[in-house]
């Protein structure tokens, strides 16, 4: 049971966006700018960072839906491997360096040090890519807390997430997605 009276038919963040549409607007707009963009990082890489941070925060709903969107672009195996041990996953060194920054952000802003940043720059990461990585990781430290702090419900059915992920990737994105 959620901590506040929401539409219990809607899972995760969707019931909260239905509860308070006024905050849903900038939250969805932020997700759209951060995740639905191929400049610098591509959509799959952005979703992978979101899924990775959500898995570190152990947020079932967010890691399932963003894991499913990342899998839409990069394949299921990559997502599973990144969540388990990203350093051994079949991704670029640049992406590994950015995930390592994202992991520091998840612990707290001050955990990011010159070491991680220069490693990422040496692997070819640009300022905007480092910026977007930090903000995606920080934003999921918000989304995860919002979803879990109000005790929302996360369905177990992987097909539900795959269905929504395909819809997000092919039709709605985040700015035009409806909670229903």
């Amino acid at each position: 049971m959620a901590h506040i009276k929401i539409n219990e038919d809607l899972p995760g963040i969707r019931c909260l966006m239905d509860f308070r549409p006024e905050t849903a607007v900038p939250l969805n707009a932020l997700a759209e700018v951060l995740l639905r963009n191929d400049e610098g990082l591509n959509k799959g890489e952005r979703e992978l960072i979101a899924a990775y941070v959500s898995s570190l925060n152990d947020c079932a709903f967010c890691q399932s839906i963003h894991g499913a969107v990342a899998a839409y672009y990069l394949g299921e195996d990559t997502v599973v491997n990144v969540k388990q041990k990203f350093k051994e996953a079949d991704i670029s060194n640049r992406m590994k360096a950015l995930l390592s920054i994202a992991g520091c952000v998840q612990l707290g802003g001050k955990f990011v040090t010159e070491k991680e940043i220069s490693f990422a720059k040496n692997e070819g990461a640009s300022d905007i890519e480092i910026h977007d990585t930090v903000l995606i990781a920080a934003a999921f430290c918000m989304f995860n807390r919002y979803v879990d702090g109000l005790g929302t419900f996360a369905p177990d059915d992987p097909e539900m997430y795959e269905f929504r992920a395909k819809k997000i990737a092919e039709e709605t994105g985040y700015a035009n997605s409806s909670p229903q």
Partner: protein
Amino acid sequence: MAYINLEKDVPGIRSLALFRPDTGKELYKLAQVLLRDDSPLSQGERELIATFVSSKNECTFCTQSHAAAAGYLFHNDTQMIDLVLTDYQNAPISEKLKCLLSIAGKVQQDARLVGDEDVANARKHGANDRDIHDTVLIAATFCMFNRYVDGLATMTPADPVLYGQMGARMGEFGYIAPSPTI
């Protein structure tokens, strides 16, 4: 020195909003809706929650600037604000706000720690669904802002006078994304 090439002499979140205006715009809108627009919590109470969470996350820029905004909204009662940060159970604030700060503290640590009894306790002292929702989302949002500001090592001014000016601006005009000076 910031980790990326930000405009010099611009502090904290403002330097990031200038670096990437399309995310900056949405972040300022979110702050405005959460901290200034309609809520059963007063603007001052919401700034206190933001300050409290930022202080737990040890983000000096966000703590100082939102403490200054709270100071502006609470007629410079800095003693009360300091006590909220160090020992909120003994601060001169309502029991309801104490319960909400306890929920905010759990969201800051790990949101799954927020339990039924925390929520029941807040309700017993008059909190409704919107109070609880807004508290959790403000606390969660500052877990983002704090990480964003510190994760990129943005400039944190030391001069308290500067924070006083920021607080007055935030208290009076709310959250308006900075526009480039050039």
